[in-house]
């Protein structure tokens, strides 16, 4: 799956030039642009997501896991309570599991609120998973431990949150570190 950093500037250039109908285009730029167009995979859903992500309309999360990690997107999903289950807030770096790209991130918390806006100002206990690369380890909350996430703001379909405490453990070897993260999520 393509990451934000993989979408070349030349693609944007071609798009904007197509829109303005400009005729005189340097050959080398045109060739680069063609190569770029040919290498873009074209599934409907991922194209839409890619555009959103390219335009930075899909949120992001900035984490620290042995160094800074930034995900290409961040979505917030609120599932209201039913009998036998509380409301659940989850933050994830992908719309569907099939479109997951790396770095990938998943945070989920049981919350006591009937709606998302009610959570503003609350600190919730969450499980958290971060996987910076496809081949590398996953950092996560061990066993039944949690990280604390403060819901800073909910404005329309944008959610801002940050990690305020907790520990993540590495899947290989068990090294731990403090959980650090800021989320700028969109409700899809």
């Amino acid at each position, binding site marked *: 799956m393509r990451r934000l950093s993989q979408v070349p500037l030349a693609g944007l250039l071609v798009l904007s030039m197509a829109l303005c109908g400009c005729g005189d285009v340097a050959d080398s730029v045109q060739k680069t642009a063609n190569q770029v167009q040919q290498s873009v995979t074209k599934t409907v859903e991922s194209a839409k997501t890619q555009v959103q992500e390219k335009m930075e309309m899909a949120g992001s999360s900035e984490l620290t896991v042995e160094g800074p990690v930034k995900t290409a997107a961040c979505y917030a999903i609120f599932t209201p309570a039913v009998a036998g289950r509380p409301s659940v807030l989850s933050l*994830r770096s992908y719309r569907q599991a099939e479109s997951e790209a790396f770095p990938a991130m998943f945070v989920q918390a049981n919350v006591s609120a009937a709606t998302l806006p009610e959570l503003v100002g609350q600190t919730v206990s969450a499980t958290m998973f971060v996987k910076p690369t496809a081949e590398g380890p996953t950092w996560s909350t061990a066993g039944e431990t949690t990280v604390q996430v403060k819901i800073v703001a909910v404005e329309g379909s944008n959610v801002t949150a940050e990690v305020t405490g907790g520990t993540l453990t590495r899947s290989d070897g068990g090294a731990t570190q403090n959980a650090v993260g800021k989320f700028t999520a969109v409700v899809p």
Partner: protein
Amino acid sequence: MRAFNFLCCWLLALSPSLVLANPSDKEPYGPLDLHGQEYAPEMHATAKQLFDRSKDDLAKIESQFKSKDVDKIKPAVVGKTHAAINQLRRLGARLRQLGEPAGAEFELRAQMQHQMLASVLQQMKNVPNAQRGIDAIRSEAGQLAQARAKQIPKLQKLIDQNNWREADKELYEIFDEIEPYLTFLSVEDRASILSPFREVAATIDMKATQDRQRLALESLVKRRDELRPDFPKLLADVQAATASVGKAGKHNMDGKDLTGPELIAHFDQAWRQAHVAHCKALGVAWAYEAASQQVPSPERQALLDAYAKFTTEVGPALAALVKADTARVNASGVAALYTAYLPPVADLLDHATGAPVETPLTAALDELAKKSPEFAAQVAAYRAVTDETLRWKARVAEEQAKAKAAEHEPVEQRALRAFKRTDSAVGLFAMDAADTKKAWISDAAATTLIKDSPQAIGQKATANAITALPGSSQAGIAQYNARIYTRVPLAMEKMADGAKSLEIALFSSEKSPPLSLAATRALRSARRGDLVQVGGTIGGVYLEGHLTRFATLPEAAALLLPLGTSPDSYGQQDQLEQVVLRFDLQPTWLRHQYFVVEVP
């Protein structure tokens, strides 16, 4: 050398229950288990006792041999040992006739003991004045044979009556009595001394062998055919149940009314029983092939085909049962019915990983949920808050296990390395074998176990696909794979902790059961102790006859192979020498699909 007297002290009174089962690293001289109980047990017990006594005698003889006290070795002991080895070989051959791997192994033991004795014998014959002793023995042997020749008319009478069992018994009582004397004599001497018996012996040997063969094959065919499961009937039962469920939401099975979900559980169990019967029938079919020297037999293929056919049909058939229930139920009854179906379907999918059942059953359950749009929305919401949790937990468990497995070898690989044939070691696998699919003995099991087990014991290894054994054994077995399987004690308290964590993560409680198949499977497998992988130290190695392992498969070990899978077989003449390796693994970590626990 002194001439010796012979008492029949070594005609043994026996108790089959004393026989230890299957050779291992700790008990390398344990005999291979039997699968047949009609004719084999007495011979098996006798063979074991003969071997043990010869082993003790050979040890004494060898120590005298090594301390150069050759002339102190008692000819009577050597003669007795030689005769016992002979008898062991004969019993081994007769057990082979019954399709018993134990017979093949006893024959190899006899060969081994014979070789141990051969060089001692040669030295004894070269001792000064040995010739005088040999002459005396020859004379005594001749006298004994003459005396026993008086029983020939009786033997002839038994021949005339076609009483092969008695004739064989009496003939070999005589031969076994004379045999110790013949130890030191030449082939020509032997032939001369036994010449009065030549004719009756030829007739009795031929006819008694044919008789034993006939009885053996009849017994094997009977057992095989009695075991063969009736798969068409099982399928018909599913179809009948489907019709009833479609009308009334239940079906009467063995006098009891069962609902759709209860019927899934019922057919899961019925399939497991049929699966065990199929494996046993196949084991006996292979034994029949070995005993009749007809490899492969058409019956073997018929068994495999019947199971293969059932396996392709059962998934859609069970899905049809769920669909019939779906057609009948009202929207208001969907929630209860769906949640009732989840546990038995979850269990069935875990049991039947060798069959195409997951797709049709999952689809049928989805259809059921959709009959109530409100409930379908609840299921979708539940999945929205659990599917990703499970996916990430599985990923973490996989990575944790991969890191832990770094210093471990898959147990099959360790087996191959430890038990491969070399120029100096007999082993179980060919020198150039790339895998463990073909394992066979060409020497006494003990020889291989004593030499090669040290290369496996204490080594770190992993085993895959562990199913918890039912009951209180607190152990699991790793799925049989290419002649290898593994037994693992399970730290159920640790597993319980993992299961509890999962319950919380999956919002599961008695009042509020999980609403997805994935969550149901996760919890139920965790509570049972089913595992994707374990890592630990090899603590024991056992050899079992390949066909015996399946011919005697207990119900508790039904999932040694997943439902829908048949045990491997390849049609070769060495059926009886083919073995299975079982390892005992002491785990240091257990990997469930969704969590890993360390075992202190």
